[in-house]
Structure formats: structure tokens, C-alpha cells
């Protein structure tokens, strides 16, 4: 092999974890196969998503090559900028589909809540790392405040799905940082007690989604329609599925949002229980590999960040498949690697990039 090629190969793969990349590529391949069917062989959609994947892989590579201590330095500024953007959205944001989520920067429109999915766990990990030696209850209180301020801003946009994901990510950091079980139990009880108040603060459509979760048939043409149709799609797949491109629920347009949030229904209808278990296995493999990286991460910052990224990834997958199969309410959470759309794909690959970076830079830190 030519030395230049060898150097290039070394440059490209230096900080890449082969196992994790293999799993990611396998999931992306499944995503392309499903999208071809879900989009009804729409070439523009498929090539669009292929472009998104290339960008996401580039981002993955880029972040895999950013040493963790740079990230650590960036944590607080990113968080502050994100918070400012969220406040700006609340004040000047654009309304689309009844929610104020977008900020028009003149050249492009951005959705700061998406950005906070990484910025919040990053900032919390930085905060705990900084106070590692002197962790007291007070520090946990500050961390909770750091978490709840952006979550509150996002929830009132309203964007329930993102708020849930960021809360989960923040909670994972707190949990892994050693938040005492007593406090977890106490907060759990307090939350249960607060439920009636939360309920009264929810928007009508949010309540409706929760209500129809318990009884989708209550509103078969309204909010229950999505759940009923996706459950029919999943169930009609049987053991082995109807075969690729053969899902009637998919191709006759009965599955709503079938390329995005409900793409799993397409997959389940066409590939059956067998396909679903294979997919669960792939997700589990990605999570296992990530947890192994997390367990071996050198610093508290690295551990907490890796743990939060891993568990947020899990939350995406679990909430999405739970909602499509009818055990969780319909919240706008995409299925990692399978749902059409660039933003989620990039932010997930960014997370895996950070994981790889931490994995490959640990020796550097230790020595």
C-alpha cells in the first residue's frame, strides 16, 4: 500500500471505533431500505436522506477528532448561547403548526431546542466534573436548575418530545453523578403529587395524546387514529412481515408520518417480529458498546457525558418504538437512524462522535 494512502487511512480512522461505526452503518443501511419503501420509492426523499447521512457521518468523524478537553471548555459557552437562543425564540420566534420553535437568523432558520439536546448534558457533565471533589446537595440543586430552565422554555414552545428527551438526558447525568436514592424517591413522590397541577398546565393536544394512549378507540378519527393505524400495521406484520414494499398499511397511506416519526410501523409491517428483534438487537448492540466506552471513560466529565449520550440514544429508540406500538403516548420523537430528517440524524451521530473521541483519547488523558 502506498504510504500516502496509508497515512490518509490512518488519518481517517485514527479516532474511530470500528465496532460502533459498524453498528451505526448497519442501522443506516436498515434506514435506507425502510425509507425506500416508506417513501413509496420516492427517489428525491431517498437521495435527500443519503445526503443527510453523509453529513451526519462527517459530523461524527469531526467530533471523534475533537479532544474531550476542547468540548469541556466549550460546555459552558454553548449552554449559555443555547439558553439565550431559547429566550430569543420565546420572544421573537416564528410560529409553525401552532408552536413557536424556530428562530430566523436571516440566513437560516434554526431550532435551538434541538441544539440543547447536546448542550444540556454537556454543561451538566462539565459542572459535576468541576465540583467533583466537593459535591454537595447544593450542587445537585444548581444542576437541576440548569436542567429545568431550558426544559421549561422548550416545554412552553410547546415541544413536548424535545422537553422529555432533554429532561431524560439531564436526569441521566444527575443519576450517574450519584444523586442519592432518597432524593430520587422523594422527587418521584413529589412529581406524582404534582401530576394534577402538571395536568392542568398541559395544552389540550398534549392531554389528548395522553388520554388516547389509554384508550385509542376513544377518538378513532382524531388523535387515536395514528396509534390505531400504526398498531394495525405492526400487528398485521406477523412473524415474518409482509415483505419489503408489500405493506398495505404503508403503501395505501394508512400510516401517518410514515417516513418520519412512524417509520417503525413500516418496518414492523414489512419485516415482522423477526425484523423487529433484529432491529432491537442492533440498538442494544449500539447501547452496549456505548456503555462499555462509558464505563472505561477516564474522567467524570467523560463518563457523565458518555452515559448521558448513551441513555438519550436509548430514550429516543424506546420512546419512539413504544409510541408506535401503543404503550407510550404520541410525542414527536424520531427513531434514530430510521426516521427521515437531517437534524436528529446529525445530533445522534454527533453524540457517537463524542463517544468515539472519548474512547480514543483516554490514553492521552491518562498518560
Amino acid at each position, binding site marked *: 500500500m502506498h504510504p500516502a494512502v496509508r497515512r490518509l487511512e490512518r488519518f481517517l480512522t485514527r479516532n474511530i471505533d470500528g465496532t460502533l461505526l459498524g453498528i451505526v452503518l448497519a442501522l443506516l443501511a436498515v434506514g435506507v431500505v425502510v425509507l425506500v419503501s416508506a417513501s413509496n420509492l420516492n427517489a428525491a426523499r431517498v437521495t435527500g436522506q443519503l445526503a443527510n447521512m453523509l453529513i451526519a457521518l462527517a459530523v461524527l468523524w469531526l467530533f471523534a477528532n475533537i479532544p474531550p478537553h476542547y468540548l469541556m471548555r466549550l460546555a459552558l459557552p454553548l449552554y449559555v448561547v443555547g439558553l439565550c437562543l431559547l429566550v430569543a425564540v420565546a420572544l421573537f420566534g416564528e410560529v409553525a403548526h401552532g408552536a413557536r420553535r424556530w428562530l430566523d437568523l436571516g440566513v437560516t432558520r434554526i431550532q435551538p431546542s434541538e441544539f440543547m439536546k447536546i448542550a444540556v448534558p454537556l454543561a451538566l457533565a462539565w459542572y459535576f466534573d468541576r465540583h467533583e471533589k466537593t459535591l454537595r446537595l447544593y450542587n445537585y440543586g444548581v444542576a437541576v436548575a440548569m436542567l429545568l430552565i431550558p426544559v421549561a422554555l422548550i416545554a412552553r414552545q410547546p415541544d413536548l418530545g424535545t422537553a422529555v428527551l432533554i429532561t431524560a438526558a439531564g436526569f441521566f447525568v444527575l443519576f*450517574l453523578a450519584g444523586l442519592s436514592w432518597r432524593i430520587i424517591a422523594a422527587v418521584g413522590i413529589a412529581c406524582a403529587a404534582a401530576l394534577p397541577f402538571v395536568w392542568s398546565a398541559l395544552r389540550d393536544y398534549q392531554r389528548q395524546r395522553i388520554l388516547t394512549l389509554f384508550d385509542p378507540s376513544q377518538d378513532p378519527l382524531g388523535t387515536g387514529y395514528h396509534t390505531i393505524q400504526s398498531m394495525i400495521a405492526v400487528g*398485521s406484520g406477523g412473524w415474518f412481515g409482509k415483505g419489503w414494499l408489500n405493506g398495505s398499511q404503508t403503501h395505501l397511506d*394508512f400510516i401517518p408520518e410514515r417516513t418520519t416519526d412512524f417509520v417503525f410501523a413500516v418496518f414492523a409491517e414489512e419485516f415482522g*417480529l423477526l425484523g423487529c428483534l433484529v432491529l432491537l438487537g442492533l440498538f442494544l448492540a449500539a447501547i452496549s458498546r456505548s456503555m462499555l466506552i462509558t464505563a472505561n471513560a477516564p474522567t467524570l466529565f467523560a463518563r457523565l457525558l458518555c452515559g448521558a449520550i448513551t441513555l438519550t440514544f436509548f430514550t429516543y429508540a424506546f420512546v419512539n418504538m*413504544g409510541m408506535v406500538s401503543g404503550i407510550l403516548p404520541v410525542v414527536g420523537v424520531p427513531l434514530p437512524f430510521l426516521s427521515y430528517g437531517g437534524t436528529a440524524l446529525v445530533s445522534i451521530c454527533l453524540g457517537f462522535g463524542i463517544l468515539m473521541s472519548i474512547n480514543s483519547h483516554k490514553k492521552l488523558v491518562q498518560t
Partner: protein
Amino acid sequence: MPSELSINPGIELRNAELELHHFQMRLAIAAGFVLLAFLLLAGRFFYLQVVRHGELYTLAEANRIAIVPVVPNRGVIVDRNGVLLAHDYSAYTLEVQPDRIANLERVIDELATVVEITPRDRRRFRRLLEESKSIGTLPIRTRLSDEEIARFAAVRYRFPGVEINARLFRQYPQGEMFSHVVGHIGRINQREVERLQANGLWANYRGTDYIGKTGLEHQYESTLHGTTGVEEVEVDSGGRPVRTLSRTPPVSGNNLVLNLDARLQEVAYEAFSENRGALVAIDPATGGILAFVSKPGFDPNLFVDGIDSQNWNELNTSPEKPLVNRALSGTYPPGSTFKPYMALAALAYGKRTPQQTINDPGYFMFGGHQFRDSHAGGHGIVDMHKSIVKSSDTYYYMLANDLGIDAIARFMAQFGFGAPTGIDLAGEATGILPSQEWKMRRFNQKWYAGETISIGIGQGYNAYTPLQLAQAVAMLANGGTAYRPQLVSAVEDHRTRDRAPVEPHQLRTLNLKREHLAVVRDALVGVNKEGTAARSFANAPYASAGKTGTAQVIGIKQGEKYVESRVQEELRDHSLFIAYAPAENPRIALAVIVENAGFGARAAAPLARKVIDYYLLGKVPARERRAGNDDASSG
């Protein structure tokens, strides 16, 4: 590991190790939670994809496949010469699914910016909406132009629940002329749905929006409707068909061929000019109805896709009552057209001989009450022939008194007076053939002998439909056989065009003596030759028989004189005429009533002449405004 490290103590390292240990514990708990969650998902997938697979698979198939009824073509209705009286044409309609639209008014306003929607369309739509209350689509606009279809197609995405459909529409090319015979169809209402369900016919009406409401469309609904076909189609979530999986074609309804002659009907209808009234013409040899007019009629096309309230109110409240089928359900005193049957009764019961005469001084005294003859001063010496030709009232006052009410009722019942004829049309009135028993039943009163007197000249309680009068005169024409009046002569198979004729149905034959019948028939010929209708039938190239009649609408008090000009139009006498021709071998028998038009000879007889002229000679009358004719002093 911790035990290994404890050999080499160092506070910081030890702390770090402890922390790492704590962290890894927490991570292990998280990993356990992840596993649990994925197991829960796997269990859920198993439950849906294996346990409930059968049920959900069926639901998916039910989603996918829609059973779509294919509506059969409705049979057409033609006259005896094949002239179309009712048929279907195809047109595009703009239809709305009310249950899929939240704000109907706003959507209709928006639609009005794309296609023209008139206030009439809106009124009609509101009426449909109130009536139907059912699921399904309702037309807001019919007969869209190609340009309107294109305009709507471009903005269709803005109107969920609104679509364009090709539909067959019923059309009645002859308009109001046949409105009371052919009737019309209309949208199926809730009561009809229930009736169809009760009769087990509802399945055959899936997809059908219309049903016969009146006339032949109603009477022959099962013949005309046909059998609904079925198509299995794959549909998408919007219900739009993607492809057809299987198809059972519908069987079109069969066609009706009528005994009616459309041109004869037109001649008769036109002959009424501005007058109200009815005419029924029958083929005396079969009972087939040749013309069946009730004037005024209405445009049945207004009813097909739902009549709007303005037109409905106009028709419903019009003093001319265009919605009443006068020929079928209007009952009128027969006036002097009753006399030939009275004469036959007198002969049959032996109360008179043809030669027996009476003196007619212009009135008949009974119980201190004077029954006046409409001909002032009377007709002098009158025998049976003259009593009919000149229409002497006094002769029949006396005769009625001699026969008695029950003998009259018994005899008249044989001619079908006061009983439904059994014509193939719903809604027939019974009429009133008075008798002692009838009065007891109706008023719980006994009959007074004085009431019999005016029965003899077709007044009093007498009330018959024009159809009954026509059937009775057809029996005089054919020698005493009652046929069931029949509008439909044959049912034609829609495909093979084979015709299944409806055979004449003989109801009964009267046992009349030939010489008795001859006396009356001679007298009826005399009426048209030298009697009350002589001027109307002057110069006719055929011999005909007829009898004029005048039916009082109001009673005239003792000692008063009826002066037409002093009486409000709607209280003026009705003009009647019964006739058949040719006298020897009758081919047509008819009864005419012209409401509030005075003497029978003046309005009804000339009208009958035009109809018979056309039927026997093919002569189309010149369209004159009014047939002013005053050739008799008595009706």
C-alpha cells in the same frame, strides 16, 4: 478490583476508585433498565405480531379493501311509440361530505369562489341536509361544466370532504305534461330507508341515492331499479380507489312501455289551455290508458336532485294545486254524465220502458220542495232517448225517486263508481257512491227520501274520480266489461329488448241486456249528433257517443237563480263530458272535467272533440286560445 487496590492505599486514588465503583454501579443499574425496557418492547411486539396478529391483519385488510356498490342504471319509461318520458343522463356533480366538514357554511362560501353556487343551490342543499341526516355525500352543485371541473381539480387539496363525481341523473323530457303519470324520483329519505330495511331490500339500495317518489316511478320502483353490482377495490386511507380486485356487474333496471300516446297526451294537455281539470282516455277493448292528464302539472325535474324551498312553497301553496293528481285523486260530482247509467238502471230494474214518457214542466215537486230543471220551462214531453239527448233533469228526479237510493247504489257499483279502479298508480281516491248504509256509516244518520232526488242527476253526495268516470264510459263502449285500467303495456328487458306484455285484466262483465244497452248508446250518439254536444261534434267524419255534464260546486238556494257572472270563479260549475268513438266500434273512451268552466257542452265537449279527432284522424288542432262554444242550454 477494589480489594486489589486497597493493598496500595492513597486517599485520592482510593476516592477515585470508590467513585468509579459508584459510577459503574449506577451504569449497571441503567443497563439493567435498558434491558428491561427492550424486553418490554419485545414482549409488546410479540403480543401485537403474534397474539393479536389475526385480528390486526383482518383490520389491515378491511382498511385496504372496500366493497363498493355499483349502482345499476334505472330503466327508462317510453310511451307506446317509443317517445322517452323518463331517462338518465350522466353529469358531474360537486359533492360534500357534511360529517367530514366542521364549518359547512364557510366551506360552501369558499367553494363559491371556485364554481358558481347560486342561492337556489344553497337552499336546495340546506333542504337536503335537513332531510337526509345520514352519512354519505350530498350534492351542492350538479351539471358542472368542464371548465368548472378543471378549476376545482386545481384547488381540490383545499377542500377535504368535497369531491367531484360522475352521476346519472333522471330527466323527464316531457316536463309537466306527464308529471302526474310518470311521477318523479327523489333522494331516499329516512322513512324509505326503514321501509326498504323492513322489506329486506336495503342491501340492493347500497349506493343508490334515489327512489321513485310518485307516479309510475314509485309504482314500478322494483322493475325500474335493477340489481346493484359489487366491486371490491383497494383503497388508500383517503378512501380513494387504487385498483379493482373483483367485480360483479350490476343488472340494469327494466324499461316500462306505456299504453299512453305521448302526442295524444300533448293534444289533450294543450286543449285545456289555461283551465284546470283532468282527462282520462281509455282503450275500451283492453283498459289501457291512452291519455292521463291532470292540469296544471308541475316540472318533475325540479324534484330530482331535491327541490329548493322557494319552488316547493310555490307549488305547495298555489291555489291551482298543481301537485294534486286530479285524474286519480280528485273527486267530482258527475252531473248529467250520470244519466245514461240511471237510464240503464231504470231498464234493468223495469222501472221505465224506452217509450214511456213524462211531462217535464221545468221542475219536480217532492215533499213541498221544488227541484228545478236547469232548462227553464222544461223540455215538455220526454221519453228516455230525449231525456239523454236533451239532458232533462226532471226525468231523472222522478226516476231516482222511483228507483230508490239503494237500487241506484247497487247498480252503479257494477260500473265501478265509488270504488278504486285498481289502476297501476298509487294514491287512487275511492269517491262516494251514496247509499243508506254509506250515510249511516259516514254520518251516523238515516237517509232521507228527498236526498235521492238530486242523486239522479249526478249531484248530491255523488263524488267520483275522472278515472272512474272514464272506466264507466269504457264499459258502455265495450258492452259492459270492466278492465283494470293499465298505464303500462309491457316491461322491456334492458338488454335483450324483449317485451313482456301486461295482459288486459278483466275485472267483471255486466249482465246487461243488449236492447237496453242499445237504447242508451243510441241516445249518446244522439247527444253528439243533435243534442247538447251537437255543435262540438259538428262535421265530425266519424260517429261518436257522448254525454255532457255540469257539476255544481255550490248549492243554489230555493227561489234563487244561478248566474255565472255573479259567482266567484273557483265556485263556478265544473264542465264535464264523457264520450267514446267511433260509436259502432269504439277505440277510445274518455272522461273530461274542466274545473269552474260552466256547462259541459261549453268547455269539456270541445276538448274531447280535439282529443278524439287526433286519436282517430291524426288531426292536430290549431292552437287557439279558447274554444268558445255555447251550443246547448243544458249541461
